[in-house]
């Protein structure tokens, strides 16, 4: 009949994408989001660059203290012991002073004693030389060789203890901040839609599942985007300060972290949205979000403070709430077999599916109930099935 030529409504999936697009636009255009993201990225960059500047560069010298500093560094440069037969491989380098060594054993002992920063010894590999260091190879030296030399690290364990906790803390902090930050964002956006009643109009246009799906998708993209930006800035910082060798150690765990984060955040976002849909006013969100906050924070503290406990860490790397932090840490520590991240990811994805399904149920049944807080048993109970 006349006037009934309305457009065909989009599919649930397409509607969800439109909802996601609006969520992203609303955030990206808000000044507070832009400013807080900029500050966050600056803090990350500063956290990497400033310590390295204060210590006069990571390449300043061996770990030893006391008199060794004078012997191994000339000005700001470094001292390298060179076995005579490979002397010709190394050009004159500014900031690098060479000290002849009789043979490999001699050079090695000087590195161990801390009188030189590194030693250049003959090697059977394609480069023909090998660099022997206490902990991390000086980039001047590595860069000066046309063919990348083999590197032998004499004393990796001591350096690891410190770096281990820093890396663990880094993964943990990034996860916690993104989870809390974007979790709160999706919770807030859910309650605001309920409080302003725009949800009634939206639900006349989009099924509840599409709406929830769109919100989860939009906020997950934002969270993942910010996390990827943090990772990129961290890489940039490491390269700028010449610590790019760390990348070879954290690169793979970082990539895994991003994958785990993507799946793990979907799970968290669904919980935040479902919890928030139980209340009708921003002021009431505190109590309903608290259990979700604990679920985010407890695994984080377990991983950060229990990172020395291998059993705890192994268990945590399979629990969906803590896996996004625990598994990359284990990968970094080299404790996980190749199949373990895949298995954990399957567990996490299954957990996320279950949680999203439950969250959709809760959301669907509580999002139109205005006024007093809706209790979980009311929406998940048997009677609720007809709502």
């Amino acid at each position, binding site marked *: 009949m006349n006037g009934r030529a309305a457009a065909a409504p989009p599919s649930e999936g397409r509607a969800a994408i*439109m909802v996601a697009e609006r969520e992203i636009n609303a955030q990206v255009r808000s000044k507070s989001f832009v400013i807080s993201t900029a500050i966050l990225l600056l803090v990350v960059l500063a956290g990497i660059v400033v310590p390295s500047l204060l210590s006069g560069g990571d390449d300043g010298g061996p770990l030893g203290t006391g008199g060794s500093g004078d012997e191994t560094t000339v000005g700001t440069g470094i001292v390298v012991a060179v076995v005579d037969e490979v002397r010709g491989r190394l050009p004159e380098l500014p900031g690098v002073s060479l000290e002849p060594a009789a043979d490999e054993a001699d050079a090695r002992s000087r590195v161990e004693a801390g009188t030189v920063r590194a030693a250049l010894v003959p090697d059977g590999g394609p480069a023909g030389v090998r660099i022997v260091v206490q902990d991390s190879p000086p980039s001047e030296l590595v860069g000066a060789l046309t063919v990348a030399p083999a590197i032998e690290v004499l004393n990796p364990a001591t350096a690891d203890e410190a770096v281990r906790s820093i890396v663990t803390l880094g993964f943990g902090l990034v996860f916690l901040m993104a989870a809390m930050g974007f979790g709160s964002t999706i919770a807030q956006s859910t309650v605001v839609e309920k409080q302003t009643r725009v949800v009634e109009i939206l639900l006349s246009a989009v099924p509840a599942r599409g709406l929830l799906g769109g919100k989860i998708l939009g906020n997950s993209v934002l969270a993942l985007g910010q996390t990827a930006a943090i990772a990129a800035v961290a890489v940039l910082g490491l390269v700028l300060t010449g610590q790019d060798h760390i990348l070879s150690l954290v690169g793979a765990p970082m990539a895994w972290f991003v994958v785990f984060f993507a799946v793990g955040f979907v799970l968290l976002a669904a919980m935040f949205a479902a919890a928030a849909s139980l209340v009708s006013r921003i002021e009431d969100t505190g109590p309903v979000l608290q259990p979700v906050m604990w679920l985010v924070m407890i695994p984080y503290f377990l991983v950060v403070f229990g990172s020395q406990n291998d059993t705890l860490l192994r268990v945590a790397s399979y629990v969906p709430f803590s896996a996004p932090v625990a598994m990359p840490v284990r990968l970094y520590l080299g404790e996980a077999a190749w199949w373990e991240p895949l298995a954990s990811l399957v567990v996490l994805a299954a957990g996320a599916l279950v949680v999203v399904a439950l969250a959709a149920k809760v959301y669907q049944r509580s999002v139109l109930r205005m006024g007093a807080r809706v209790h979980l048993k009311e929406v998940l109970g048997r009677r609720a099935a007809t*709502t």
Partner: protein
Amino acid sequence: MLEINGVSRSFGDRKALDDVSFTCRDGRLTGFVGGNGAGKTTTMRIILGVLSADAGTVTLDGRPIAESTRRTFGYMPEERGLYPKMKVAEQLAYLARLRGFERGDADARARALLARLGLTERADDKLEALSLGNQQRTQVAAALVHDPTFLMLDEPFSGLDPMAVETVQGVLREQASRGAPVLFSSHQLDVVERLCDDVVIIAGGRIVAAGEREELRAAYTRPRYQIKAGADLGWVREVAGVEVLELAGGEALFESDEVTAQQVLSGALSRGAVLEFAPVRPRLAEIFREVIENEQNVEVAA
């Protein structure tokens, strides 16, 4: 034509709707009248499909309403709501896109509708920057932006200034004249009386009266007549079957059946000139009061 057939719904032990049936006909404005908590919003939510019925059906043109059809309905909830921090035109275009319009088309529709409602200059302002009246106009626009196949508004006139009431009335008539059925609830019985073709009265979750406005007027009160004559009408009090409501010299207002009224008229003509004689239709407010009172009496008796 939208038909609601025997719809019931309980919340816990409370029966919110009890065997509710009525129709909204194409191209007509149907007023949905009832006190607070009578079941208007629950009925609307069931029509909209955001709430399920315990029993009964809702059909459009005789067919059950498919999900995709429901999405072409337009709805304005009683509690107004849009995104406060989103720009007006962008907001309407977003809603049109969710209903299936392409981006460019959606934007054009939003702007055309805003022009119709006199909001062109505010199109790119955030909603929260608009005056309350303009926010309410925007709210009406949100229900219309996709040319709904069925339009439903919960209290569209509450809190509107007289100018906005005029505009919204005009827009609702336009929508009905496009051919779509329009259902709206209101406490403002004078507006319903002026605007509606059909009226549905709900009380305590039950439909107590439904039909064309004029039929309801005729059916729900004893007919009243106004008579104005040259001579004194005091004698009318003595006519059997007549209840005089007002009497002042040559003017009287009385209730009676039609035959008796004709007797009064001929009696008056035999006594002199009759200047005026007309049936008086009761106002909707009076019908409403009467219907609700009857309902309460029934409840007390039960």
